[in-house]
């Protein structure tokens, strides 16, 4: 059988930490963010969206999430939510509930304004030059 990737899970996972500005959804993150992500999934029902928007804090308190995760949700700080183990496809239920587009939600994590991010995308997107590897700086 052809070997195409590290078969050792430690070696496989270690490589991900070398990518700048990126948090890969590994088992550690999936475990940490379990309830945050399941909270986000609950927003796939219209009645839950209504109840959440009417009183966000009360709704969040129904979930066994950390206070950090709850604060990140209340502030709509998507980088902080990902730090708490959130995954963007789960979190998309939250920004969709807010009627925010995927482009604006993704752009909110870059430190750029909505217009700056949109202009970067129109100009061809972010170049991979310099953001492939922390170690190698290329």
């Amino acid at each position: 059988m052809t070997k195409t990737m590290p078969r050792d899970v430690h070696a496989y996972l270690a490589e991900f930490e070398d990518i700048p500005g990126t948090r890969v959804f590994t088992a550690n993150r999936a475990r940490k963010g379990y309830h945050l992500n399941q909270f986000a999934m609950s927003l796939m029902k219209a009645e839950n969206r209504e109840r959440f928007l009417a009183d966000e804090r009360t709704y969040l308190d129904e979930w066994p999430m950390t206070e950090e995760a709850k604060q990140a949700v209340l502030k709509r700080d998507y980088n902080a939510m990902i730090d708490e183990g959130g995954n963007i496809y789960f979190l998309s239920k939250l920004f969709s509930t807010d009627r925010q587009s995927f482009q604006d939600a993704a752009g909110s994590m870059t430190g750029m304004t909505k217009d700056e991010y949109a202009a970067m995308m129109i100009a061809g997107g972010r170049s991979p030059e310099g953001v492939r590897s922390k170690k190698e700086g290329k």
Partner: protein
Amino acid sequence: MARITHGLTTSHIPAIAAMIDQGRTGEDYWKPIFAGYDWTKQYVAANMPDVVILVYNDHASAFDMKVIPTFAIGCADEFQPADEGWGPRPVPPVPGHSDLAWHIAQSCILDEFDITIINEMDVDHGLTVPLDVVFGNKDNSTPAKWPTRVIPIAVNVVTYPPPSGNRCWMLGEAIARAVESYPEDLNVHIWGTGGMSHQLQGPRAGLINKEWDKRFLDDLTRDPQRLRHLPHIEYLRETGSEGIEMVMWLIMRGALGENVTELHRHYHVPCSNTALGHIVLKKEEDELVPAE
């Protein structure tokens, strides 16, 4: 006998769905994105498949954190559009092909591919956007009903590790063997969806690598064996964290066999956060070895 005749790939960007649903496909930003599918719409209408095996990833819609199948096959008679937070898309239910799907599931398991059988699931933009861009009306609106049956193959590319490119390729080969052993005479397409470069999270969001994407498209015909052996880390470094979706294209490519012809290609940057890529491949018969 059923046979796979074509492979097709396309990105499945959710903003495309939003524009279709809001009737905004004629806006300047979106015009070239939809125009790149005009050729495909005509060609596929003239060569209508009986069944599309549609490889996609569920974006935390049918599957949440409770159950994470690496490969799953939809065996239902019908699939409803999922509510991804905006309410379900106003698109018709997707007709399945339960008998062929169960045949593929059973054949793959006997072929040592232990795929998860799903009898009820809603399908999200990952499945409905490809149907829209290929089967949409001339004005890009969604048809009143889908013109063919669809067998969803859902691949986990969200929770790590996703399957390797090589494993995806081998699943494609197993699916092709399964289809060829189905007695009914059916014209079957296999579609790989998702990609191309995109990163939807963190300070590196918005990454696009046109050179890498172009080589990937070229090598679907020129050097598919190279693609089969790309490690995950290369997709992530070069094409962004969500570029990993391209492993799903290799299920399509593995199912087509050695000889394919590229019929059509469409590549456009940007489509929301993403480099849109679309290609249509025709399976050519394997060259006959003359009898001695």
